[in-house]
Structures are given as structure tokens and as C-alpha cells.
């Protein structure tokens, strides 16, 4: 029996992470014959593949964004379910990143590689908690792969928002949050903190938020902000995509306080650059402690580091005696949260 080298199982290619023995790509950035997708964010879940294997939620989100014909065929897989593809076995585990997000364990002979996609080990009322999967090779993201990123308790950040609403009752609070995942998590956290007034939504996040509600996630009373009179928005909270919070669109609000819920808000220059007055450090990615603790706990002897601050995390792994290398994958991090906030900002 020959042992397989990990790179014979998974290898970076132009289209994304390619599994030759299984005949598929993970989160491909170009159309491929067979795609296995970790979660619904647009830089991981793209349209135009032949066959797509993903969780029900991820497939539903792709359908919402790209329409019915986003792929040739689709196949649903649940957490904990194992499927054979070519010479490998593929098993999905919760990643705790957003609703339906998964880590993908690929096993070939005796070697198990876990591609974690994006993940966080912090509690989130809107999705299944992260599950630790022991493996030989762990592929980790590094969005917040610097020791300055420590995210703290998200509910404390929501308390900060509520304190500001109490301090400025005549102003509107405008919270920039990514439409898929972050917005719903912020709403759920506000409800947990006892805030029961209606929460207003920017038009761009209505559909996806309704989808979350249809999956049984309690978000309380939500209203479209469109058409509401300016004066009526005093003292209210509105969620909007980050790009909208610095756009003409904000002129409909009375003296708005601009908040932004993102892991980037840990760094002042990032918040100021964007004109944020109330930074809320709420992230759907693991912070430095989360990344390093997870890497250690998987028991993996080899770590591949993708999109983000690879250098620091690779350095840390090596200092702990782990084999580690950056995996140069192009095309990830284009989804809003991973991107530099100001550059390339979309504007309507």
C-alpha cells in the first residue's frame, strides 16, 4: 500500500482547490464540472458550475442570489453526512461562520484533510456552532491572522450600540453589516439583549433576512426602511450593507450615527478611514486566539493557510513545530468582510 501525500489529494489550481482523486473543486472561483461549496458568501459560492454539492442552506442562498439555474445540478448534504466522490470520501461539519456554512473533510485512504472555508469558534445564535474535526492536514483561513485581532464578546458590542441609542434618542443609528450572516446575527444579538422595537432594513438585505426567518431563526419585528418618514427614524436602528452607510442613501436619516459591525473595527485607522463613528467589533471569522486554538486542537501536523494574513499565522505554526505553508489561492476575500473596507467599495 502506498501512502498518499496530502498534495496528491488536494492541490491549489487556477479554478480553486482541486481534488483530483475525487474529481471536484472546493469553492471554485471559475466554472468547473463538479463543485463542493463550503458556504453561501459570493466569493466562495459562484454560479455556473456543472454539479454542486452543498448544504440545503447554501444551495438556497445561491438560488436566491443567482436564480433557479445557477448550476447544472445540485445535491444536498447534511452535517455529519458522508458521501463518496471518486476515490475519496467527503464529510460536512458545521463551521459556525454563517447559516449553512460547513467545513469539508476529505479522506483518501488514511489521510484526512479538512478544508474549513471560513469559520469561527464564537457563539452565534443564527447558525450551528463550529465543530472541531481531528485531521492530518488542516486548511485554515487567516482573515484575522494577526495577534492584534481579538474579538471579545459580541454581546458587549451590541450593548455599546444600545447605549448610544439611549444617549442620542433624536438620531438614527445606521449599522453597516454584511447582508448574509452578519446582519441577522446583529439583529439576533439585539433581541437577546432585550431590544424589542422594530428594526429597519435596507432593501438589499430584505430577501436574505426573510430566508433566515423561514429557517426558524427568530428576529422579531423587521420593517423595510424604504418609504419611512425621516422624523420617524429618530431613535431607531437600521441595518444596511456597509457601502450604503456612506452613500447618498443616508440622507433620509435624521443626523445618523454610523456604526459598522466587523472584525476590522478592532483597528482604529480602519474605522476612521471609513467614517465610522461607532465601531462594533463583531466578526464571523475566528480571531487570532480562535485560529491558533483551533489549529492546535485539530491535532493536524500540517497546516495550510489561505486568504488573509498568512505570514503571521504560518510563522506561529512553525514556531509551534507544525509544518505550515501559505496556500496561494486567488479570488477569495472578495466577499465584503474580507476585503479592505474602502478600496473597491461598490456604490449605487
Amino acid at each position, binding site marked *: 500500500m502506498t501512502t498518499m501525500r496530502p498534495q496528491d489529494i488536494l492541490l491549489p489550481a487556477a479554478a480553486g482547490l482541486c481534488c483530483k482523486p475525487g474529481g471536484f473543486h472546493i469553492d471554485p472561483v471559475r466554472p468547473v464540472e463538479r463543485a463542493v461549496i463550503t458556504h453561501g458568501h459570493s466569493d466562495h459560492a459562484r454560479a455556473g458550475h456543472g454539479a454542486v454539492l452543498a448544504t440545503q442552506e447554501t444551495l438556497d442562498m445561491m438560488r436566491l442570489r443567482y436564480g433557479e439555474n445557477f448550476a447544472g445540478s445540485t445535491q444536498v448534504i447534511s452535517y455529519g453526512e458522508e458521501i463518496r466522490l471518486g476515490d475519496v470520501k467527503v464529510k460536512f461539519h458545521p463551521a459556525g461562520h454563517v447559516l449553512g456554512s460547513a467545513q469539508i473533510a476529505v479522506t483518501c485512504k488514511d489521510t484526512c484533510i479538512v478544508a474549513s472555508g471560513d469559520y469561527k469558534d464564537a457563539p452565534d445564535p443564527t447558525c450551528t456552532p463550529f465543530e472541531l474535526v481531528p485531521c492530518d492536514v488542516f486548511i485554515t483561513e487567516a482573515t484575522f491572522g*494577526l*495577534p*492584534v*485581532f*481579538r474579538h*471579545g464578546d459580541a454581546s458587549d458590542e451590541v450593548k455599546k450600540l444600545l447605549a448610544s441609542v439611549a*444617549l*442620542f434618542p433624536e438620531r438614527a443609528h445606521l449599522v453597516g453589516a454584511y447582508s448574509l450572516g452578519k446582519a441577522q446575527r446583529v439583529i439576533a444579538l439585539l433581541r437577546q439583549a432585550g431590544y424589542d422595537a422594530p428594526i429597519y432594513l435596507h432593501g438589499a438585505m430584505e430577501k436574505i433576512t426573510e430566508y433566515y426567518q423561514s429557517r426558524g431563526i427568530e428576529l422579531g419585528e423587521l420593517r423595510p426602511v424604504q418609504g419611512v418618514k425621516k422624523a420617524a427614524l429618530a431613535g431607531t436602528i437600521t441595518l444596511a450593507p456597509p457601502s450604503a452607510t*456612506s*452613500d*447618498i*442613501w*443616508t*440622507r433620509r436619516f435624521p*443626523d445618523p450615527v*454610523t456604526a459598522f459591525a466587523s472584525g476590522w473595527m*478592532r*483597528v*482604529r*485607522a480602519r*474605522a*476612521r*478611514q471609513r*467614517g*465610522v*463613528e*461607532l*465601531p462594533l467589533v463583531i466578526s464571523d471569522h475566528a480571531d487570532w486566539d480562535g485560529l491558533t486554538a483551533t489549529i492546535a486542537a485539530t491535532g493536524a501536523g500540517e497546516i495550510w493557510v489561505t486568504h488573509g*494574513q498568512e*505570514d*503571521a499565522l504560518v*510563522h*506561529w505554526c512553525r*514556531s509551534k513545530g507544525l509544518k505550515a505553508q501559505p496556500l496561494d489561492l486567488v479570488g477569495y476575500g472578495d466577499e465584503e468582510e474580507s476585503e479592505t473596507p*474602502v*478600496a473597491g*467599495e461598490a456604490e449605487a
Partner: protein
Amino acid sequence: MNRFAELLDRLAYEPGRNNKLRLLTGYFREVGDPDRGYALAALTGALSFKHAKPALVRDLISSRTDEVLFGLSYDYVGDLSETVALMWPKAELTAHNNPPPPTLTEVVTTLRTLGKTELPKQLERWLDELDETGRWALLKLVTGALRIGISARLAKTAAAALGDKDPHEVELIWPGLSPPYLDLFAWLEGRADKPVNRDPAPFRPVMLAHAIEDGDFAALDPADYIAEWKWDGIRVQAVAGRDEHGHITARLYSRTGEDITGSFPDLVPSLRLPGAIDGELLILREGRVQSFNVLQQRLNRKVVSPKLIKEFPIHLRAYDLLGDDENDLRELPFAERRERLESFIAKLGDPRIDLSPTVPFASWEALTAARADPASAGAGEDADAVEGVMLKRRDAPYLPGRPKGQWWKWKRDPHIIDAVLMYAQRGHGKRSSYYSDYTFGVWTAGADGDELVPVGKAYFGFTDEELLQIDRFVRRNTTEKFGPVRHVVHEGDKGLVLEVAFEGLQRSPRHKSGVAMRFPRISRLRWDKPPREADRLETLERMLKEEAAEIEA
């Protein structure tokens, strides 16, 4: 300390003045003595700790963290205090008997008495006890680099609001107060009398003028006003008083109350009569007033060399007297103060201090003529340093702030050029959804024919309606975007011409064009003018030569 840190954190992000005030006043109301007093001291720049240097902070972090990880993090964050605050790995504390995080008072009082050698251990202990924001605030505080956009004046205004007092009242007694300001807060909360200022040479809040518009004259009677030249210098208050031993203390204050005596030691010996003069700081060479550009060579200097003093001899031109010996003159009408001033200056008889002359006039027509030609109307050889006229009501008492209808400034017409809008950037706060900061340029000969070179930036001067129009133009005519900056179309026949008004020009190696404008603002939008007809750099260079000739003279 954590509550103070929370305040600094919030202030650092808040662009609006009124909201800053509310945050500050809220803090003063909520937090007790003496913490709030030390906070006020920190915000007004009244604290400094000489041993805490950035190098010490660096040493602390390198003893706790991996050098490579620190390097990468510092690179990313770009600020030492912030990087250290964020990545500080807390020592493993035992679950019981953890000391509570230090209060602001503890930090300030400890730092005051701590020796240099004990400082690292103490800082380390505090960094372990505080959270991220607390660590950030601590490091900003001890290294003396708060930089959160709060002026001392704003902090005092917020304190005054605690007791519904006029900020000028606080300003008035401020020089006699010291941290943690227990007597100040007691008075503001109605628990004690107003503290008495025992400073022998205190600052008095200044009276400011409104800019006069053509339409204002109709309602004004020339007989009610005294006119003076408006000098292009620095407004100062020169105060001398006797301390408890009878010795004279002299101080020079900027118009905001900053003590700038140290920058002008050559003026101090002339301030030997007890009193408070309101006047203009100028440079005089052979009895002749030099331009503002010349005066600028003496501003913001840390070291004032004998050479500088000799080449740029300082002078005070007096136009008001607020105090004469023990007597407060501020309640007197201006005409009476003026008389007192004239005899005060005569009695002083010092060549470095003279009287700003009045400009006699019987009608607005006569004053218009004088303003148009100061040289023939009494300013003589100093006419170049005149930037207009001041009008002061004869019966006006000296009122702090900018009271309506008392003092008017009537500036000479500014320099005007037509420039082309090149780049636009979003504003801050209320203007964050508008492109309200404009970079404009003029034509110059380039390698491939004429090209525009940026000569300045302006973000005011336009009306709200004009702002909307420019904003619309920018959004529709963007050629490229770089983060918050938009490149706006600027070609010979496509683009927007802005009429830019400014007060003066200076040579500047930092600008590509080689010139920098003083106080530029948008005075008109020239929708009618094609960009190719905008001004050329040569025009500015000509104006520059005229001004530069004076500095070297």
C-alpha cells in the same frame, strides 16, 4: 481608567462638536471627583509625564511577544500604542484576588511620584489589569499623545455645561486652577462659591468681530463707530500683573488663551506696566510693518535663537485695554477704553509697543475710499500689512465671544483665481455622504502641452445649494476612484471651473506646483467658463514674487 478610556474611545470617532460636548458633559456628570478632574486635565493638556517614552513601551511589548508577530502587527496597525494595546498578552492571573483595574486618579498620582526605574514594572502591571481600550488610553495618556480631536476649549465648555455656566466664566478663572479641579466642580455643581483666580496675569477671553456684508451698512450709523486698520498679524493678549510679592509677571496669550510667552522672550521686558493689552503681534523692520509671511518665520518655534530675534524683531500694536493695573475695564464703552489705552501706551513709552491708529471717517463712502487706499489714508508705508478695516461700536463693552452688531471686520478684497476641479473627497460627519473636499489646479506647460497641476484644496466657501450641485457634478463626472477620493474629469473643454479666493501665497516645496495658498475657499462656481480659460501657474508665480521679495528684505 476604563470609564475614561471608553470616553476617549468614543470621542476619537465622533466628528460632531455638539455630540462631543454631550459625551464629555455626560462623563463629568457621571464620574466623581477626583477622576473627572484628572480627565479634564488630560484633555486640556495639563498633564505630562516625563519618563514614559515610546521606547519604553516597545521594550515592554518585546519582552512579552514574538518579535516577528509584533513587527507584522505594528506594520498593519501603524500606531505603537494601539498595536501594543491590542496584542498585549495578559499574564496568567490567579482567579482570586485579582486587583481591580486602576482608576485614572491612581494612574496620574502614581506616575507623578514614580521614579524612572520603577516605571516599567508599574506600566506592565496596569497593562495586565486593563482591557484593550483601557490599555490604549493608558499608553496614549502616558506618552502624551492623546490626539483625539478635542481642544482644551471644548473640554472646558463641556465642564461649564455641567453647571449651565458660560464657558467664558470657566476660561476666566482657569489660569488659577489646578488638577483635579475640585473647587471648579464644586462651584459648577452649586456646592461652593466660584473659585477666585489668584493668577497675577490671567488670560481674558477675547471679543471677536463679524464679517460685514454690503447689506449691513444701511442699518449702521457711521457716527456710532470707530474705525481702525485690520493688521495682518497675530491677535494676542499681553498681560502684566503683580504677584503677592509685588513682582511683575508678564504673559503673552494667543486668542484662544494659549500661553505663548516662551516664543517671544524679546517682548517680555516691554510688558512692565500692570495691565492687559489686546493687540496685534507684528514684525517691524526700521519702523515698517512686515507681511504675514515674514511674521510666520517666528511662529511655532521651539527654540528662539538670538539670530531669529535680531532678524525678526517682534512688535505689539495695541488696540484695546482690558485691564489697567487693578482695574477691570471690560465693562466700559470702547471709546473710554480707547482713551485709557492711549494714555497707557504713552505712559509705557516703549518702542516695541505702539498704538494702532484710528481711521477718521464721516461717511461709509469715505471709509470705503480709505479701505481701498490705506497708504493715503494714514497707514503710509505699512499699507501692505493692512488687510482691511475694523469697525467697533463706541459704546460697546468688551464682550467675550462674537456678540452681534458690536465689532465688524471689513477685509480687503482677497486674491482671486479661476482653477479647475481635479479631485473630490468625501467630507466628515454630517458631510460624509457628500463630496465636499476639493483639490483644484491651474494650467502649466507640461511635456505634452498644457496640463493641470494641483495648487490647493478647499472645503468651504460654497452654499449648501452649491454643495449639492458640486456633489452631483462629481458623481456624474468621475473618471477614477481611489478609496474615498474621486478623480473628476478635468480637460480643456470638460470639467468645472471654481473661482477660488485666498489671502496669500507662499513657496512650498511640499506641493508639486511649488506654491501654497493661505485660507483658500470656493467663492463662486463658474459653470459658464470652459476649463481651458482657467488661470495659469504663471499668474500665481507672479503674485508669489511680489510677496517673497519682502521676506528676504
